[in-house]
């Protein structure tokens, strides 16, 4: 028996040992689950839902904006780029941002717009997102009114570090991407057995810490500011 076989056998034994002990334990009956009242936000719809989201975005320390359409969203983006003095950003290629053709838009507005797909490997991409991108511009698969959370299905179009590494994150939220409650993730992301994204995350506002003497402040390892442009 070679070394690696030996290890496999040992691991298998540990598994059997642990499960065996758990199975041998005396059973205990527990009462059935009590009734769980649904979240009141679950009933939100239409304009009331978007208005509720705007409130949550403010409460979670986003910098929220609301615009009429995609054209106005681009104007707002141009204004942010100018005010923040951005010269290099990275944009997602998800269904919200891709149709805007931000690289072309960037050339008009004097800002380099990188996209995750343009990098040959992890190393190159990492140095761009850690060292060069002053901000990221992304959409979200859906946005939760209940908590003001961005539902981010990570993948080639919206990789994980894109919404995490740059100190400023600008997110575009079409009103039809707003859902009432967190439960939306159950069906939308995990609804098809075995076809789950390698990573899914809820991101809610800028990163936060209270680890030094309990003093709470925004902007720890993740973005320090998240600007949310709600469209429609």
């Amino acid at each position: 028996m070679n070394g690696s076989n030996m290890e496999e056998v040992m691991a298998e034994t540990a598994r059997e040992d642990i499960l065996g002990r758990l199975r041998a334990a005396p059973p205990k009956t527990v009462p059935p689950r009590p009734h769980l009242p649904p979240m009141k936000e679950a009933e939100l719809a239409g304009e009331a839902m978007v208005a509720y989201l705007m409130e949550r975005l403010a409460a979670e320390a986003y910098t929220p904006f609301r615009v009429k359409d995609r054209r106005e969203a681009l104007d707002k983006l141009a204004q942010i780029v100018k005010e923040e003095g951005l010269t290099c950003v990275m944009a997602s290629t998800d269904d919200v941002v891709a149709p805007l053709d931000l690289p072309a838009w960037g050339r008009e507005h004097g800002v380099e717009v990188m996209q995750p797909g343009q990098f040959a490997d992890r190393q190159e991409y990492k140095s761009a997102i850690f060292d060069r991108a002053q901000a990221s511009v992304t959409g979200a698969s859906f946005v939760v009114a209940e908590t003001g959370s961005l539902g981010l299905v990570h993948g080639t179009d919206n990789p994980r570090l894109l919404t995490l590494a740059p100190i400023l994150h600008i997110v575009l939220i079409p009103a039809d991407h707003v859902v009432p409650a967190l439960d939306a993730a159950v069906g939308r992301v995990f609804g098809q057995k075995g076809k789950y994204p390698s990573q899914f995350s809820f991101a809610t506002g800028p990163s936060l810490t209270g680890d030094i003497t309990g003093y709470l402040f925004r902007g720890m390892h993740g973005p320090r500011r998240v600007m949310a442009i709600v469209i429609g």
Partner: protein
Amino acid sequence: MKIRTEQFNQLAAVEIEKARVRPFLKMVPEFLYRKRAAGLPSLPDPDAAQAYAAAVRAEVVNRLPDLLEEFERNATANGAKVFWARDAKEANDFIVKVAKERGVKTVIKGKSMITEELGLNDVLTANGITPWETDLGEFIAQQMNLPPFHIIAPAMNIPVEEIRDCFMEKAGMETPTVDPVELGYAARVFLRDKFQGAEMGIAGVNIAVAETGTVINVENEGNIRFSKSAPKTLVSVMSLEKVIPTMQDAINMIRVLARNCTGQRISAYVSMESGPKRADEVDGPEELFIVILDNGRSKIYQDTEVREIMQCIRCAACLNICPVYRQIGGYAYGGAYSGPMGQALMPLLFGLDRTKDLYRACSLCGACASVCPAGIDHPKLFLNFRDKDVKQDPRFNSQQRPAKERMFFRLFSLGMSHPGLWKLGARLFRPIFNLNAHDGVVSRMPGPLAGWFRKRDMPAMPVKPFHQRWEELKDKKS
């Protein structure tokens, strides 16, 4: 970390005198407690939600083997590699082996109590691998070589001046400051290189979903997301009770966990891995290892009376409300876990003999149980441990109580069950007790009762007790 649960009383005596820690202990647990109280009402019926969470955790703990097998099956189908570890050594050996085989020199870690329990950092360091704690509090604790003071705010007790000095020396901070925001920024800048360069990430697990094979982390800083996204290899370590049946259960649990922890509706980040990155993704781990750790838990599982401690979701609500924790802080407990959840868990992990003072350092006020979203009755567990200890239950290494104590309680029990003996004993005891009275107060006492009087006093006993006077008065009247 070195387990020092045996020294609880000595450590507590030292901690309680630390003047610099007192303002933080007064402030932070109370602050978190109030945040919780303010956050819970955003649920439609907070009591019902707490009861529901408790019922789910109780159900999980009683269905563990089935749920673990389901989780393993689905996690494996997602492409994760699941490794079972009977104890800390097996888990640590495995993680070191994974790191060495991949030539890993630097590891970034998300805050996890489970790797504290494993003592993983020491093992990695001994094997030439540098672990970087990346949670701000855990980073401070690691740099200052301190254990966690609180399970969710591990360095809340460190004054800003000490953090400044530490960061100047060890974290490349150039301009001295005591501003928490500036200190946080210095740590951000310092750790960014580590996030970018480390070859391996290690994280704990808050929730493992059986139905989907997904592991979930809940955090505010973003360091766990970095640890799970930037390196090529990821090891997620979970104790075996973290599993939960469905994704819907996980969503409900996240709502309750965040509110009990910090009063938030949801933490800033909740990230969920279902397997390693797909081939066309530019970031994320190429390999995802999930370590399922037993380390004494399957033994706890055998005892249906104490099994409920495995329902714990590590929210720290019990620490924040505990009148004992609020006085002594987290170091005195002598292990990774502190407060009531630590007092209830560590005796079962390390043995009742090594934790005698831990489960006795409780007035049984029940504040912890009243806030627990997982349905744990901590005082009931403490009474169970004390009972096992006295009866020398061998399952968790309980030893006999000292001979004097046993003798005392034997006599006490004899007296309590024989009124004549009790009266006689009391009559003999009163004058001896009163020998120590000064101006009608006993404030010191030699012998075995000395400890009780160290910080208390008691009025001297009357020569004739009330019952006797009452009898005499009645006689006189008639």
